[in-house]
C-alpha cells in the first residue's frame, strides 16, 4: 500500500549557501531535503521512501555555533510503500525455485511464495521451471499474481523488507 506521510525533519544549510538577504532559503532547504530523502531508502515504521511531495512548512533557522551551519526545522509530505499482514496485493514473479517463487511487489523484491502456500500447484519444468495446477494455470517468471501477505520482516542492515506470501484464500492466484 502506498501511503502519504507528513514528517518533521531538520535540514542543515551551510552558511556559505545562504545569500546575504537570506532569500533562496526555501530552494536550498528543498534541495537538501531531496538529497536526504533520496539517500534514505526505507525505515521499519514507514516502509520504502518513494518520493517527496511537498515542503509543507519551514520553521525559523537556528545557527549551529560550532559549525556555522543553519538548522531549519521543516515538515514535508512524501509517499512511502509498506505491506501489511493480511493485505491482498498484486505482485510479479521474478524467480522460480523448486520450493517456491520470489515475487516483486512495489519496490520490494523479496516476497517469497512457498510451494506450501500455493495449494494445487506443482513444480514442473516445461523448458522453464514453473508451477502449474490441474487447470493448466501457470505461475512463472513474469506472471502477475494476486496474493495475501502473511508476514513481513524488516532487515535493518540492508534497509529492506522481506515478506511471506500465500495463495490460500478466494480469488488469489495468477491473473
Amino acid at each position, binding site marked *: *500500500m*502506498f*501511503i*502519504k*506521510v507528513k514528517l518533521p525533519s531538520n535540514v542543515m544549510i551551510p552558511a556559505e549557501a545562504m545569500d546575504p538577504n537570506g532569500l533562496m532559503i526555501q530552494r536550498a532547504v528543498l534541495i537538501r531535503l531531496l538529497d536526504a530523502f*533520496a539517500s534514505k*531508502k*526505507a525505515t521499519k515504521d514507514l516502509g*520504502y*521512501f*518513494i*518520493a517527496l*511531495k511537498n515542503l509543507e512548512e519551514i520553521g525559523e533557522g537556528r545557527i549551529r555555533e560550532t559549525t556555522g551551519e543553519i538548522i531549519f526545522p521543516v515538515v514535508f509530505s512524501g*509517499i512511502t*510503500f*509498506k505491506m*501489511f*499482514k*493480511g*493485505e*491482498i*496485493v*498484486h505482485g*510479479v514473479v521474478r524467480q522460480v525455485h523448486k*520450493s517456491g517463487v520470489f515475487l*516483486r*511487489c*512495489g*519496490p520490494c*523484491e523479496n516476497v517469497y511464495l*512457498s510451494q*506450501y502456500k500455493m495449494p494445487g500447484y506443482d513444480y514442473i519444468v516445461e523448458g522453464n521451471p514453473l508451477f502449474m495446477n490441474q487447470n493448466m494455470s501457470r505461475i512463472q517468471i513474469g506472471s*502477475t499474481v*494476486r496474493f*495475501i*501477505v*502473511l*508476514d513481513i*520482516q524488516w532487515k535493518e542492515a540492508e534497509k529492506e523488507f522481506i515478506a*511471506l506470501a500465500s495463495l490460500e*484464500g*478466494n*480469488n488469489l492466484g495468477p491473473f
Partner: protein
Amino acid sequence: KERREEKEKLRIRFPSAMSGEEEENAAELKIGDEFLKAKCLMNCEVSLILEHKYEQLQQVSEDPMNQVSQVFEKSLQYVKRFSRYKNPDAVRQVREILSRHQLTEFELCVLGNLCPETAEEAVAMVPSLKTKGRAHSDEAIEKMLNDLSLVKRFE
C-alpha cells in the same frame, strides 16, 4: 524430510505467520492507528505523481533514469503496470465514487487497486467490508462496482 526442513525454516523466520497468531491483520483493519488515519494512495494516483516527477526530471537531465533511486524506478514500473485508470479525470472519479461508501482509506485503495468485479470478489479482497459493524450490503457493493465500471479507463 525436505518438506519438514523447509517448513521449519519458514517457522523460524516468520513465527507469527506460521503459527496463525496475528497482531497486525489488514483483513480486519488491524493495522496500527497511524496507518488507519493516514491517507493511502491508489496505484493509479501514485502513477500520476511519479510520472509527473519523472517528466520534470527529463526537462533538466539528459539521463533521468540515472537520477532516480532504484526504489523510485521499481515503484514507477509497478504502479504503471498495476493501474487500471490512466487518465487524471478517471482517477479522480474513481476516488470520488469510492469515497461515497463509508470506507477507510485503506479499504478504498485496496478496492481501487484490485478492481473486483463482483460483490463476492470485493468481500474476498476486503473482508473488513463485512465486519467492523458497518454491514455493507451486497447491493451497496454491487452499486459501487457498477459506478466504477462506468468510469472511462482509456481516454
